């Protein structure tokens, strides 16, 4: 009962890979946009804020459909990526990673933004008087102090990616071995007779991964927090 079939292993493996790639790809953009929203005033700021949050409020199917009509093989962005770099996203695991990154992005940006806002700008001024330009100030003062929140945001993004279903299945379908993640596999098994066993096994694995990610993030954030507040 508790041994996984090769197909189920593939789904687990694929889910982890997609979620990890989605989180790592979202991270630099998420950090940059969170910092911009926390620290800068510029024209179109509320528009950018709304755009970032859109995947959170739109039905996931709508987000998936928007990805399909822009990143599909014949769609404007998709065909450009294919013709210039040979990158195909639609119906590939890379496309699933893109969908998951888009869906997890608002969670990452929200957590990181709050964290950047809580960094005392007077410490950044102190860094400037000591000769640090803006980039160095960010790298040596702002980012290390905001790290607990950035880590928390990354874990939320990872968890969201792991559970993503609607946008992924709309954009890249449900192809075993290519785009069938744990969530999609569970859904498939519940639709066929005799699928209860495999579905239950994958449900347990999903729970274990989610709790593991939460515990790991709590530990990392606490460590980073202790460092940031000078208690370690």
């Amino acid at each position, binding site marked *: 009962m508790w041994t996984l079939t090769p197909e189920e292993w593939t789904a687990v493996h694929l889910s982890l890979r997609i979620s990890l790639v989605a989180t790592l790809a979202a991270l630099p953009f998420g950090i940059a946009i969170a910092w911009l929203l926390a620290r800068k005033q510029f024209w179109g700021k509320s528009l950018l804020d709304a755009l970032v949050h859109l995947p959170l409020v739109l039905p996931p199917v709508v987000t998936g459909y928007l990805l399909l009509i822009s990143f599909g093989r014949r769609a404007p962005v998709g065909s450009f990526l294919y013709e210039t770099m040979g990158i195909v996203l639609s119906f590939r695991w890379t496309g699933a990673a893109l969908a998951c990154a888009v869906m997890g992005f608002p969670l990452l940006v929200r957590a990181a933004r709050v964290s950047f806002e809580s960094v005392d700008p*007077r*410490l950044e*001024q*102190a*860094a*400037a*008087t*000591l*000769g*640090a*330009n803006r980039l*160095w*100030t960010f790298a*040596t*003062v702002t980012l*290390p*102090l905001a790290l607990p929140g950035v880590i928390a945001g990354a874990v939320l993004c990872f968890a969201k990616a792991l559970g993503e279903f609607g946008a992924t299945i709309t954009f890249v379908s449900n192809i075993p071995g290519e785009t069938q993640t744990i969530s999609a596999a569970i859904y498939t098994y519940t639709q066929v007779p005799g699928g209860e066993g495999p579905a239950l096994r994958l449900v347990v694995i999903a729970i274990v991964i989610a709790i593991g990610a939460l515990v790991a993030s709590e530990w990392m954030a606490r460590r980073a927090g202790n*460092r*940031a*507040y*000078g*208690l*370690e």
Partner: protein
Amino acid sequence: MMLAVDVEKRLGAVEIAARFETGARGTALFGPSGAGKSSVINMIAGLVRPDRGRIALGEEVLFDSAARIDVPAHRRNIGYVFQEGRLFPHLTVSQNLRFGRWMHGVGRDAEMEARIVEMLNLGALLPRRPGRLSGGERQRVAIGRALLMRPRLLLLDEPLASLDAGRKAEILPYLERLRDDGGLPLVYVSHQPDEVRRIATAVVRMEAGRVVAVGGLDLLGTAA
């Protein structure tokens, strides 16, 4: 080295208009709270941008609104000791002290480091983090951090204001030594005449955003 300041800045309802020149080793910006003293040294440091005016240190113009010159804070090489220390909480004392040298990309001067650590009595603090230091210890580290970047001018914004009398008495001798060692001019912001008497030789008196008098220590006597 002459420091020439002539700046105007509107900050909310307060209009700051400050003009003075000083070549003294220890210059005090003296006046009641809210007189605009901190704003003036923030403009010297490059942290606040004046609306109009000119700031020059020796031959170098740091700010000139007419000539559109505004050297950014990180290139002014002016040390700053803040009222609350502003040590980096995620770095050890020793890393805080080395921060300025890293940012300027200058090599290590072990002799200078040892001298400053000895002068400020920081040896025992080096491996610790700022979160667990006392207020007096923090200010000593902040002074050391500013000195180790080898500034050409040192600004101190009420560095003793958050300390009790005992801690003040602990820091003041270090500041006196600093002034007497020569080489590095100090600009010291305070509203405490007794502190100013010990540190400064020249006084710039400010009230309500304006410089009302420039002169010697005799200016302190008539202050409220």
